[in-house]
C-alpha cells in the first residue's frame, strides 16, 4: 500500500464500513427515551457528517490499552463522540467482558489534563512548540549519535509499535530497549522458562479442581485478570473447585478464597517446599523429581515449615491433601512471592508443586508460539528501569526516548530516576499526560489517546491462542496538535531512514501495508489483501497460526533461603497492587479514584494496612496517621486496621503519591515505591519490591478514613448469605 493517501474523511469512511457490521445486539436505534412514558420526537437541525446518524450509536472494534492484558473492546460512538467501551466477544482474552480500568478507558481519553501541544525545554520551563520545531530539535540532537549512547525506555509494547521502536533503534545500531512494569510476572515467567521450557505457559483455571495461589492476584492484578475471571467462573461452577489463597496480605483474589491462609511475608517458598515434602512423604506425588531435590526437601518437615511460615502443621497437611485429592490442581505464585529476596527459588518451589501434583500438561499447558516474533509483547519488570538508570547515572546516554511509562514516578526511590535523567544529554518523552517523567524531559511529544490512535497489539499473556488485536480510532482526535504514537515514531524513523519509510504517509498507511502484507504463514485469514483489512477492523482480532510448544520439564529446584528479620525495622512493607489505580497510571481517572478499594473500601487516598495485633503494638486505631520509615525514607498515611494481613507485615497500596499527573492525581496520598530498599532477587536481577523492612511510628494526628460502608459486619442481617459447599454439592454440584 505504498503511497496510499488517506485523509480524515476517507478514513472515517473506511471506519464506517468496518464498523457498520459490528453492530451488537442491543445496539441503538433512534429512541425517544425519557423516564416518562410519553413520547417525544427529536429532530436534528443539522446536516450530519457522513456515517453519523443523529441518535444512532455505532460500535467499532478496538483494543484496550489500560494494562498489558490486551482485551478486545467495542467502542460506542454517537455523533462522533466515543461514549462507552464494552468487551469484544471475539477476543480470546476477555470474551466480551471488561474490568473497571477498561470501563474507565473513556476517561483517559477525555481527561481534562491531557497534553495538547509538544513542549520544548527552555531553561527550567517547558514551552509549547509546534511538532515541526520539536522534531527538528530531535533531529539535531540525534544527528551524530553513537549506537551505544541512545536508549529507549518503555512500558509494555507489542505489535507494530514494538516493531517500529525496534526499527528505530536499529537505525542507530542500538539494542538498548529497556522495559519497565511495576506490576509484572517476570519471575514467574523466568521460572517457567527454566523449568518448563516455556516462559508463558497457558494456565487453565477453568480446568482445575483446586487452586493454591501464593499471592497470585489472578482476579485483580496478575497477568490477564479479565481472562482469568471468566475461567474462575467456570472453576466455581459444576463440581466447584476449591481456592486456597496463601499470602501475607489479602488480595482481591484472596477475598474470594475458600480458605485464606496468612503466611509470614517472604516465607511462601518455604511453605511450598513443605507441602512438596508432605506430598512425597505421604506418597501423594504424581510427578517425579530428581533425587537431589528429594534430599533437599527432606529438611522441610511439617514442624520446621510451620515454624518458618506461621502456618499450622495440620493446615499444611490438609492443603497437601486437598491438592492431591482434588485433581487436577493448579499452584500459582504472584507479586508478593515474585517480589521477595528469594523470589526465583520461591517461585521455583511453587512450580515444583505443579510438577509433583502432575499439573503440567493438564492445568498448565504449553503456549502457542506466535509466528511474528517481532510483534510479540515486550513486557518488563523492574530490572530494566534499574539498568537504564545505571547507564544514565554513568553518563553513558546522550539521548533517551521514554514512552508508555512514567519511570520518575514508578521506579523505586533508590534508583533516583530524576537525578539519573538529569545526566542524560537529551530526553524525549512521548505521553498523553503531564506526568512526572514528562516534567523532566527536553522534548515532550503529546500523543493521541488510545481511542484516537491506530495500533496492533499482542497480549502480554497469551490466552491460549496467538492473536493480533487491532486498535482503531473511535473518533477524531480531540486536540489538533497531538499525534499517534506510531505516527511519532514513524516521523523519527524518517529522520534516520528517509528512503525506506518515504512510502508511508502516516502510521495508518504503514500499519495497513504491514498487516495486509503479512506472510500467509501468520494467518490463514490473510488471503484477499483488499478485503482483509476491513474485515480485520470489523472483527478486531486476527487469529494467527501458531505451533503449540512442548514442555521440557526440569525440576532441579533449590532450597529457599529464610528471610532475615531486623530489630530496627520490624515489619515488611508490602507495596500492594490495586485493580483500579494499577501502578499509578490510572490515578488521574476520577472514576477510578472514587471506586473504593476492593478490600479496604477506601477512596481518594493512600493508607497503611495493619493487623489489629500490629496496631495495638504501635498504639494506633483506624484513621490515625503513622509514619512508615525504611532505610530509604518515609511516607505518612492513615491506618486501616483489618485482620487480613500478617502481623509482621504492613501494606501501603500502589497508585497514589503523584507529584504531577493532573488535577485528580497530584498531591494525593503517598507512593510506597519511593521508600523501597535496594534489595534484588539474585537470579533474575529484579527488584525485590516486597523485601523492604520498615518501622512504624504513631503521629499525633487522626481523621476519619473516607470509605464506603458504615458497618464492616452484616450485623446479623441476611445480606450476603453463605452456605457450606456440602449443601451446594447436594443441590447443584456435579458429582
Amino acid at each position, binding site marked *: 500500500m505504498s503511497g496510499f493517501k488517506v485523509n480524515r474523511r476517507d478514513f472515517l469512511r473506511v471506519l464506517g464500513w468496518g464498523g457498520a457490521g459490528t453492530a451488537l*445486539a*442491543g445496539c*441503538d*436505534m433512534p*429512541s425517544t*427515551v425519557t*423516564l416518562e412514558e410519553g413520547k417525544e420526537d427529536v429532530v436534528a437541525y443539522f446536516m450530519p457528517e457522513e456515517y453519523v446518524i443523529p441518535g444512532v450509536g455505532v460500535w467499532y472494534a478496538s483494543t484496550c490499552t489500560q494494562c498489558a492484558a490486551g482485551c478486545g473492546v467495542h467502542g460506542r460512538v454517537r455523533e462522533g463522540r*466515543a*461514549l*462507552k467501551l*464494552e468487551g469484544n466477544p471475539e477476543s480470546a482474552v*476477555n470474551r*466480551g*467482558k*471488561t474490568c473497571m480500568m*477498561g*470501563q474507565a478507558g*473513556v476517561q483517559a481519553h477525555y481527561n*481534562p489534563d491531557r497534553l495538547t501541544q509538544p513542549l520544548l525545554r527552555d531553561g527550567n520551563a517547558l514551552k509549547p512548540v509546534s511538532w515541526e520545531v520539536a522534531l527538528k530539535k530531535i533531529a539535531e540532537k540525534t544527528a551524530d549519535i553513537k549506537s551505544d549512547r541512545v536508549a529507549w525506555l518503555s512500558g509494555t509494547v507489542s505489535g507494530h509499535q514494538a516493531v517500529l521502536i525496534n526499527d528505530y533503534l536499529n537505525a542507530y545500531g542500538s539494542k538498548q530497549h529497556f522495559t519497565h512494569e511495576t506490576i509484572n510476572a517476570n519471575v514467574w515467567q523466568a521460572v517457567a522458562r527454566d523449568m518448563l521450557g516455556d516462559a508463558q505457559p497457558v494456565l487453565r483455571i477453568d480446568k482445575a479442581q483446586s487452586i493454591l495461589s501464593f499471592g497470585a492476584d489472578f*482476579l*485483580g492484578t496478575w497477568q490477564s*485478570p479479565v481472562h482469568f*475471571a*471468566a475461567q*474462575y*467462573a467456570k472453576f*466455581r*461452577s459444576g463440581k466447584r473447585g476449591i481456592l486456597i489463597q496463601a499470602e501475607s496480605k489479602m488480595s*482481591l483474589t484472596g*477475598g*474470594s478464597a*475458600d*480458605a*485464606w491462609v*496468612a503466611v509470614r511475608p517472604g516465607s511462601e517458598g518455604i511453605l511450598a517446599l513443605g507441602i512438596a515434602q508432605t506430598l512425597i512423604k505421604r506418597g501423594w506425588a504424581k510427578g517425579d523429581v530428581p533425587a537431589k531435590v528429594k534430599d533437599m526437601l527432606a529438611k522441610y518437615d511439617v514442624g520446621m515449615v510451620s515454624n518458618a511460615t506461621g502456618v499450622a502443621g495440620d493446615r499444611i497437611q*490438609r492443603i497437601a491433601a486437598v491438592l492431591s485429592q482434588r485433581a487436577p490442581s493448579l499452584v500459582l505464585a504472584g507479586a508478593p512471592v515474585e517480589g521477595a529476596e528469594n523470589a526465583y527459588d520461591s517461585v521455583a518451589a511453587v512450580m515444583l508443586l505443579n510438577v509433583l501434583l502432575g499439573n503440567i500438561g493438564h492445568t498448565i499447558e504449553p503456549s502457542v508460539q506466535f509466528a511474528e516474533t517481532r510483534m510479540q509483547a515486550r513486557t518488563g519488570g523492574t530490572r530494566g528501569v534499574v539498568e537504564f538508570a545505571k547507564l544514565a547515572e554513568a553518563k553513558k546516554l546522550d539521548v533517551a526516548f521514554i514512552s508508555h511509562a512514567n519511570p520518575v514516578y514508578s521506579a523505586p526511590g533508590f534508583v533516583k530516576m530524576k537525578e539519573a535523567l538529569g545526566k542524560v544529554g537529551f530526553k524525549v518523552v512521548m505521553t498523553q499526560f503531564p506526568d512526572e517523567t514528562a516534567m523532566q524531559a527536553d522534548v515532550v511529544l503529546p500523543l493521541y489517546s488510545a481511542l484516537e490512535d491506530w495500533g496492533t497489539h499482542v497480549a502480554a499473556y497469551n490466552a491460549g491462542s496467538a492473536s493480533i488485536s487491532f486498535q482503531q480510532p473511535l473518533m477524531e482526535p*480531540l486536540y489538533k496538535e497531538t499525534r499517534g504514537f506510531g505516527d511519532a515514531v514513524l516521523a523519527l524513523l524518517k529522520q534516520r531512514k528517509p528512503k525506506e519509510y518515504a512510502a508511508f504517509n502516516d502510521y495508518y498507511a504503514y500499519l495497513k501495508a504491514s498487516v495486509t502484507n503479512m506472510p500467509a504463514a501468520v494467518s490463514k485469514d490473510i488471503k484477499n489483501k483488499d478485503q482483509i483489512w476491513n474485515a480485520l477492523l470489523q472483527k478486531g482480532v486476527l487469529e494467527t497460526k501458531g505451533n503449540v510448544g512442548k514442555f521440557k520439564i526440569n525440576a532441579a529446584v533449590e532450597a529457599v533461603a529464610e528471610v532475615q528479620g531486623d530489630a530496627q525495622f520490624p515489619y515488611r512493607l508490602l507495596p500492594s497492587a490495586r485493580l483500579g489505580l494499577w501502578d499509578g497510571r490510572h490515578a488521574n481517572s*476520577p472514576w477510578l479514584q472514587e*471506586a*473504593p478499594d*476492593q*478490600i479496604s473500601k477506601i*477512596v*481518594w487516598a493512600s493508607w497503611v494496612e495493619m493487623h489489629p495485633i500490629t496496631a495495638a503494638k504501635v498504639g494506633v486505631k483506624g484513621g490515625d496517621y503513622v509514619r512508615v520509615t525504611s532505610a530509604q525514607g518515609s511516607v505518612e498515611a492513615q491506618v486501616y486496621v*483489618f*485482620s*487480613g494481613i500478617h502481623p509482621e507485615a504492613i501494606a501501603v497500596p500502589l497508585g497514589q503519591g503523584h507529584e504531577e499527573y493532573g*488535577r485528580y492525581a497530584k498531591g494525593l496520598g503517598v507512593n510506597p515505591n519511593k521508600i523501597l530498599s535496594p534489595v534484588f532477587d539474585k537470579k533474575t536481577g529484579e527488584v525485590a519490591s516486597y523485601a523492604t523492612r520498615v518501622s512504624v511510628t504513631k503521629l499525633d494526628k487522626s481523621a476519619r478514613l*473516607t470509605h*464506603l*460502608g458504615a*458497618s464492616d459486619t452484616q450485623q446479623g442481617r*441476611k445480606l*450476603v*448469605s*453463605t*452456605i*457450606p*459447599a456440602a449443601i*451446594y454439592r447436594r443441590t447443584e454440584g456435579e458429582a
Partner: protein
Amino acid sequence: MSFKNILENWSAFRKDAEAGGHHKYDHRWGMAINLDVCTGCNACSTACYAENNLPVVGKERFEKGQAMHWMRIERFWDDADKQYPERGASYLPMMCQQCGAATCEPVCPVAATYHTPDGLNAQVYNRCIGSRYCSNNCPFRVRYFNFYSYYETWAEPLNQQLNPDISVRDKGVMEKCTFCVQRIRTANDKAKMENRSIADGEVQTACAQACPTGAIVFGDTMDPNSAVSKLWAKHEVKRGDYLSKKPKQHPEKRGYRIFEELNVDPSVMYLERVREEI
C-alpha cells in the same frame, strides 16, 4: 396510585400481580446475582458510572455519604472474631432492587417515583421536588440525592463522554439505578419497529455486560424461557407476597432476596455464597 383505583377495587389493588391484582405488566425486569462468583472487582460499578452519567463527588462529599454510586459493592467481614478472615470477604453488589411493592413509591408527595408497566421503579426527575422521603423509606439505601449541580463539575472535555440517551440530573433531584432503562427503551423501540417482542439477552444492563465472571444475569422475569426466569425457578424464588408464600420445596436452594421479609417484593435474586471447609 390514583384515587379511582382505591374506590373501585382496593382489595385487587393491594394484591400483587401473582395473586391476581390488577397490575398489568408488559415485562418485569429482574436480575439474578450469583454471590459465589462475584469477586467484588468493581467492574459493574465503574460500568454504571460510564453508562449513566454518574458524577464523581470527591473525597469530602464521599465522606458525608453523598457518593452517587447507583451500583456499589459492599464488603463485609464475617470472621470479625477470628485472628484472620479465613473465608475471605463477603461482597454484595447493591443497587435499586426495583421492588414490586416498593416502599419508596407511596411516600412521594408528588408521584415523582412511580411503577412502570415493565416493573421498574421509575424516577421522574422533572417532577421530583427533593423531599427525600423515598430515600428515607428505602431499606436498601440505594437512592441518591443531588445535593449539588454536579454537571458543573465535569471538567471539559470529560463532559463529552456523557451518554446522550439519558439526562444529567440537577441539584435537588433524587436519582437511582434504572436497570439501564435507556437500553431497555432502545431495545423496545427496535423490537416494536420489527414487530416482535424483545428477545432474551437483547437488553443487558451495563453492569451485567461488564461483569467479568458473569455473576449478574438480567432479563424479563415474566418470560419463563429467559435465563433469569430459569435461574429464579431453579432456585425456587418467586415474586409476590412473602407472608402468604409457601416455604421452598428444597430449602437448601441458594436463591434469596434481601429483606424479603419486609414484603417489598424485590426484583433481584441473590444466590448464596458458597465456602468449602478446609
